[in-house]
Every structure is written in structure tokens, then in C-alpha cells.
């Protein structure tokens, strides 16, 4: 295997290099945790590898109502930001258990999102937090909800010369991410469940990973939870609805019926945890006033 490694230093140059190459001839390197495997097993055989390392996209920017994370920010940097843990506990939980510390130091937010794996631990929580994705390409910049980016494993709505620049999230939200794996470390989740409570619109967000063909919001289940204080019955109903509506497959990591069972349990637990976080958050807000 041999290829040319290029390091554009501006987004415009990166887009130009991508536009000038046929798909398949060029591969994008962000953290490389997926790309290296693809090169090793010859799934990809690019002539050029375009590294995003020199692009100015490593940052977490907080404002009053939002957090913007640059796409080449390593997961470890997000995990180590104390504010993320305090204000967006679900995002922190999703990131903290991806792979191993070494892997999280390499893997990036944009890389994980762009790979679009149905088993991603990150994507469900981004869906639950209504993340918006900023994309640069030959036609300039566009922004879209993360839901409209995803299609399936290795399939997104990104154009061949488009790159994810950043992801925008609310500055805080009571949220939870729960996963189930055979092993806690360096394993792939059988299912992942993200829940969040947002003040505007339909309050509850439930998103699942480990489902087919891609991670998705479970709006039918969300609809069962109309209020900020759902009853035990409503929570259980939402969990059952999520398990009933989702599409699962059987593979070497879990059977379809086990995944369905796990979703029913984890959605209930995730909502309960989020409710606990809401009640903990309320007194402190009152205290500030």
C-alpha cells in the first residue's frame, strides 16, 4: 500500500483538493481510527490521503445558549472538559466509554459522525440533543440537523467534496446515555440509548443506537412523554414503544430479540436518570436566582 499524504492548512484548500480527485482516489484522515483499519484490510486503496490535522477545527466554544465543537476535536478533549460533564452529562457519558483512552485521544467528533456507524455511541446523543452540523464544500457553508446527515453505515448526505466543520449543541440539557456491551472497555455497544429533556417544543428526546439502518430518534416513544414529569406508567410505555418501533438485526454481538429487550430496559432507565438530573438541576438554578 502506498499513497501520498497531504496536509491542507485551510478549509478552502481541503475542499479544492477533494473536488479535484475522483471518489475512491482520495480518503479523508481525521483521527484515523477507522481509516487505518480500512487501509489495512484493503477496503480502501486511495492514491491520496487528506489529513485534516492542520485545519483550525480543534475547539470547544461555549456561548450563553450553545456549545460549538470543531470537527477535528479529539473525543478525549471533549471528555476532559469539565463543563461538558456538568452541563451535558449525556454527551459526556457517551464519549467517556468509547474504545479506550488511547483511542479517544485519536478519534475525533467529526470522524465518528461522518462514519455514520449504526453502532456509534456518539450519534444517539447528538440526535437527542438536536445537534446541528456545519458543513463546508464547493458550494460554501451549509448547516443541517444531524438527523438529515445520516443515512446508514458509511453513508451520509455529505457531498464527495464536503467536510464536517463543526457541531452545535445546546449549552446545557439534562441528558443521559446508557449502553450495553459484553465488556465495558474496548467493545462495541449492542445497543445505545440517549435521552434528553429540552425546554422548547416537544420536551423529550429519545434516540437509539445499535438499530438499523442507522441511529434514529424514536418520535413515537417521545410522544408518549408529554410532560416534564411523566408518570412511571408513561415512562414504561415510552420504553416499550421504543423497543417495539425500532428495527434490530441479529449479528455476532447480539440477537434481535436481546437488543429489543435491552432497549426496553435502557430507555426506562435513561429517562429515570434524566428525571433525576432535572430534579437535581432545579434547586441549584433556584439558588442562583
Amino acid at each position, binding site marked *: 500500500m502506498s499513497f501520498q499524504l497531504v496536509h491542507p492548512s485551510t478549509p478552502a484548500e481541503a475542499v479544492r483538493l477533494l473536488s479535484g480527485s475522483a471518489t475512491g482516489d482520495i480518503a479523508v484522515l481525521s483521527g484515523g481510527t477507522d481509516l487505518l483499519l480500512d487501509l489495512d484490510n484493503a477496503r480502501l486503496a486511495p492514491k491520496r490521503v487528506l489529513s485534516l490535522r492542520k485545519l483550525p477545527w480543534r475547539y470547544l466554544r461555549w456561548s450563553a445558549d450553545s456549545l460549538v465543537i470543531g470537527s477535528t476535536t479529539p473525543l478525549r478533549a471533549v471528555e476532559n472538559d469539565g463543563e461538558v460533564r456538568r452541563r451535558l452529562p449525556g454527551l459526556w457519558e457517551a464519549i467517556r466509554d468509547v474504545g479506550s483512552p488511547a483511542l479517544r485521544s485519536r478519534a475525533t467528533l467529526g470522524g465518528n459522525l461522518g462514519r455514520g456507524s449504526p453502532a456509534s455511541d456518539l450519534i444517539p446523543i447528538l440526535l437527542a440533543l438536536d445537534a446541528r452540523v456545519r458543513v463546508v464544500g464547493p458550494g460554501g457553508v451549509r448547516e443541517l440537523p444531524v438527523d438529515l446527515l445520516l443515512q446508514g453505515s458509511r453513508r451520509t448526505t455529505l457531498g464527495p467534496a464536503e467536510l464536517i466543520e463543526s457541531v452545535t449543541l445546546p449549552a446545557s440539557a439534562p441528558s443521559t446515555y446508557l449502553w*450495553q456491551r459484553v465488556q465495558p472497555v474496548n467493545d462495541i455497544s449492542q445497543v445505545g440509548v440517549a435521552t434528553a429533556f429540552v425546554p422548547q417544543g416537544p420536551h423529550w428526546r429519545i434516540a437509539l443506537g445499535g438499530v438499523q439502518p442507522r441511529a434514529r430518534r424514536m418520535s413515537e416513544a417521545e410522544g408518549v412523554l408529554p410532560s416534564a414529569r411523566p408518570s412511571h406508567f408513561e415512562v414504561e410505555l415510552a420504553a416499550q414503544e421504543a423497543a417495539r418501533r425500532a428495527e434490530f438485526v441479529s449479528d455476532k454481538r447480539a440477537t434481535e430479540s436481546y437488543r429489543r429487550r435491552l432497549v426496553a430496559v435502557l430507555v426506562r432507565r435513561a429517562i429515570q436518570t434524566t428525571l433525576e438530573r432535572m430534579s437535581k438541576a432545579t434547586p441549584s438554578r433556584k439558588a442562583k436566582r
Partner: protein
Amino acid sequence: MTRSDAAPKARGGVGYGMDLEAPGMLWAALVRAPVPHGRIVRMELGPARRMPGVVAVVGPDEIRTLLPKGALEAERPVFPLDEIRYRGEPIAAVAAETLEQARHAAAAVVPVVESLRTDARIEDVFPEWPSAAAAKDPRVVGHVHARHGDVEARFRSADLVHSETYHTSGVHQVALEPHACLGEARGGKFRVRTSTQTPFGLREDLASILGIFESSLVVEGTWVGGGFGGKGAAFLEPYALLLAVASRRPVKLSVTYAEEFELGRTTLPSIIRLDTAVRGGKIVGRRVRLLLDTGASLPGRDFAVGYSIGFLLGPYRTETYEIEGFAVQTNKPPFGPHRAPFAPQSVFALESHIDGLARRLGVDPIEFRLRQVWREGDRTAYDQPVGPFGLEAGLKAAARTAGAWRTRLPAGHGIGVACGFWSTSVGAGGEARLSLRPDGLVILQGEREIGNGSVVHGLAVVAERVLGLSLAAIRVDYGDTATAPFDSGVFGSRTLGALGQAVERGARSLVTILAKRVGASEIHLEIKSGQVLVVAGRRRHKLVDLLTPTERAEGGLVVEGKFYGPEREVDASRVLAGSVYPYQDFTGAVHLAEVEVDRETGHLRVVRYAAFQDVGTAVDPSAVQGQVEGGVVMGLGAALSEEMLWTPEARLANPGLLDYRLPRLRDVPPIHVELIEGFAGAGPFGAKGVGEPPIIPVPAAVANAVADATGTRVFEMPLTPERVARALKLL
């Protein structure tokens, strides 16, 4: 304890198989069968030969010209001559200037094959439990049948008969270092350097495979990056040597980790049926039936069944029994030894069964075991007298710890106990050459250190204890099969127990010789200012002054220590078919596990663990403790997550460490280790071999803890969350 290999290993200063190099060396790659069972109709090697960098390509036809006797006389063919028996079986091999060129050329060899019916699992061969007539089935490659007493009568008159069926899965050794070797052939002489646990055994194995004389082959071991049983028999060496003959150059062959998994030689699945008759609260009759998947092994595998069955009877008094087991040929790679071969799986079944029986009788599981466990002087199932055995003492110690744990046991938690036993192997014996030089002692021997320290450290400690010489003045040296005295190798927990005795005997002859020379009845050695001193009472002699001129010229006083174990016997009249094995000594292990079970998902967490290990004498307590902890962690992998998954087409679905799940640090609970001393074993100073025993009871202890926590038994290992969920009827 500071091991002499610690610093060099930490600094990258020792050479493993992967590090092997030679001037003019070629790299090799294997062409592997695309189907699990079939015939090669046509295989063109010509195109691969013409590819860049390729120097030699060998297949079944080439063996005839390269090693004419190899093709005719070999016990096992290097390449399949007629039938492919497992997916990925090597069918040809390539040597080229670079590794990439070799792999590229190997991938270009695409044989035309005719597929035959695939038996991926035992159930494909025997959909129903086979009758005794199955012994004649060509797919049965091993058969053992034994009985004692009027079993039928005991079952008829029993108060209770407890019957269960257990399933176990394939488990890989997962040594950190994949197999790697470098072969050379020149003028009818062969030399192979390889990462091996058994240089002498490998020499014999290779000679038989290649059809060459043992005397024309030298095997040199490298440092071994973990063995666990997987680095004994010939594996890559025949291909490297064959390519060396064809290319007339040194050839290095190593495999990727995926190939390491796919080529197998590991523990394969088994199905175990146990029926136990109880009368008056005691076991009076046992029926044991076993189907053991031995993969694409050739006939002659009685020993695999014989070993398993010994563990299935267990360390319990058995008044009457009937046991029958079959080794079943399937289209998986051949099975191979894995730390305590056949024991963790068999013991999972037996100890789960015993535990369930105790619960059914309403008797405390430890108390129930104490009623039937072997004590010294009892007879084994094959009428061998039981020697000093620390299992009863281990059970009593475990009962105290379990009692303490139970006083504060949170809801959803459970405690499980399991016993295991083992016998230190002698193998085919072993020897060591001890050279006492004016500046210290050198022990030359033929084993390689595989990581646990029993060679580099254990053998030195034995000499230290006999001679009184400090460890710093003792060096363990390694020879190849031409320079070192014979030894059987590292397996069966035998390094300290068997080779250690050869060292002990050698050291004692040094003492005898030197005592005579100084005219004393007792002496010991000391080192002072770099000089070995012989101390007799208040007299001190420089060793150099006691040596004869010849000894001085040869660098020291040289003695050979030899140990070829005593012959033990079993009552052969109880064995109707196949063979069973006598024990050298009796090593017990009792384990306790506390687990937390998520009743909604089936997820397990091992909260804490305790191991009570019968060691005879702890020659080096911290080293033994390390062995026990390592065994427990490895056993937890087999208990919770390690499992080779084959598809119905006999394709390994998880040939890598993502989906073949080893325990990670976060899976490892606090492990309390207690060494039980005072029940002497066959080794030096009464030591017992402890390399293998600590892995044996782990899956059973975990399964019994799950049963304690939930009242539900899991009949299949590993206890993955989904299996536990199914047992709990959650889906």
C-alpha cells in the same frame, strides 16, 4: 522478587520469534483453503512463481521432490494431499523478498475446489446423542469407555437422580506474541528458530512431519511472548523449513493475528451429560457422557477424551460410575492444548452440576463437597491411592471467607464456590547441566521462559535453596536441542515440578562432591567479592582452590541433574476402551466468586474473588501469587466473554480482539489469594505445579455465583449477558 529478565524485557532487550532475522532471509506467506471441506481439483502455482520478488512456491506436489521421504513416511501431511479439512488450512506456501510480495503472491493462488458437506459443529455430526456403535464412525477420532461397580443398581436404588446437559465453547490461548519462526536448510541439515514451549518435542514432531531424522534437525527456542499451551506442537515450522529447502535461503514465517485465530489449535466446544445418583445425602453413582469437538484432527485422539473424563469425575469419591466419551471430527481447525487442557470446561459442567445437586438437596454447597472430597489415602476412580491433597483444607478456608462475605451481601449479589484439581506433569522427564564456576553457577537447560518466571526465576530459586548461593550468582542459560540436555518442555505445570527436580538433584550432587573435597558433612556456598566460597562450619574455601586442573580448564565443576518421574499406574480392568491417565500428585484449588447480576439485562459483574490454592510448598510465594492471579483473570475471560464463534459454514466470525473479548482491567475484581501449604507434591521441597490449576475452577465459580444470586442455572459457558438473560427467561 526481581526477575533477571524484567529489565531486559522492559527495555526491549530480548528477542522474540517476531524479531528473528538472518542474512539473505526471505519472507513467507500461506495460501489457505477457501472452503471448510472439499477437494482441490486444480491449483496453478505458476502465476504466483512469476510474480515480483517471489523465490519459491510450494504445494502438495513439490513435497515429493523436495522431501521425498516426507511425502511417503510423514505421519501428517504438510499440505492436504487429497482433502481440505478446515477453512483456512494451508494448502501452499510462498517465499519472497518482502512480506508484502509474499502475501500478494499467496493471495494470487486461487485453487479450483470441489466442496464437500461441512460439519461445523458436533450436532452436525451427531444430531442425536450417539450410541456405543458410534465408536466405529469414521468421524469419531477418539473413544474412551470405563466403568466400575454396579452403576445400574445404584441408580435404581437412589433417593434422587440429578441429570443435566452442559455446553462449552471454543477458547483461544491469545498469547500476546503470534507464532513466528525462521527455518534454514543446508546440505541435508535443518535448523529452525521459533517461539516454542517445547523445543525437544517440536524436534520430534517436525522430524515425523517432514520425514527427516531428528539428528539432522536443530530447534532453537526464542523468548516466548506467552504460550498457554499454544506453542508446543509444529505449527508454522514445517512450511518455513519446506520453503527453506526450496529456496536454499533462510525463510521467516509469521502470521497476522487474524490468522492466529483462524489456524486454531485451541480449545473446541464440548457437550457434557451428567447423571448423578444420591442416597442418604451422598453420591453413590455417576454417569458421565461427553462429546468433544476435536476439529479436523486425525484419529488417535483418545487422550483428549481420557483427560476430559478425569476432570468430569472430579476430586470426589466415586463408588460406582460409567463414563463414555467420543472425540468428534468437525471441519474446524484441529484442537490444541490451552492452559489446563479440557479442565475449565469439564469442571464448569461438573462443579455446576454438584452445586445444583447440593442446592436441590438443601445442603450448603461447601458442606456437600466436604462430604465426598478426596482425602489422602482415598482411591481415585481408577483405583490409584490419593496422595497429600489440600482440597479439604481449601474448602474449609473458603467456607470461612464465604461466611464473612455473606454477612454483608447486597441484594442481587450471589456467592459461588467451585473446586478444581490437577496433577503436576512429569512429561517425558528432563535434565539440567549445572556448572559451578569460581564466580557463580550456570544452569544450562532446554526450556524457554514463557513469561511466568518458572524457568528464569523458579529454577534459580531451587538451586539457591539447595546451595545457599544468592540468586545474583546464579544464571539460567538456554541451549538449543544440540547443546542443551534433553527436557520435555513447558507444559502440564511441570517446569518447577519436573525440571526443577533435575536442578535440585544436580545441586545436591554439587553439595555432595564439595563436602567430600573439604572433608565436611555439611556445606553451603556463598559469594564474596565475586568469588564462590565453600563454607563448612567456620572454614571457608575458595571454590577455585577446590577444582581439579581439568575442571579449572573447563570453567568449573559440571554435574548433570536428571529427573524421569516414577511410573504410576491405574487399574486398567476398569477401562473398557481407550486410555485414562494416572496422577503424579494431587493439587487442589477452591475458588469463590461474588457476582452482581442485573436481573433485567442479564449483565454480570464479578464483584470480588478469592482463590485458595494448594501449592504443597510455595518455593517463591510472590511468584505463585502472580500465577494464581493470572490464572483467575484468564479464567474470568473464559467464564464471561471469551468465545470463538463459528458460522454454520465453519467460518470463524470473530478472528480478532474486538469481538473475541479478553478480560480488560475494568473486568478484573479484587482477587484474594491464599496459599495452602503442607500437603506435599511431587516437586522440589514438596512443591506442586501451579501454572494451570488456578484457571480451572473459575467458570464454575462464576456460574455458581449466578445461580446463588438468581436461583437460575446457566448451562452454557461463557456466561455472556445474553445467555444469562435467556436463562433468566427475559427473552
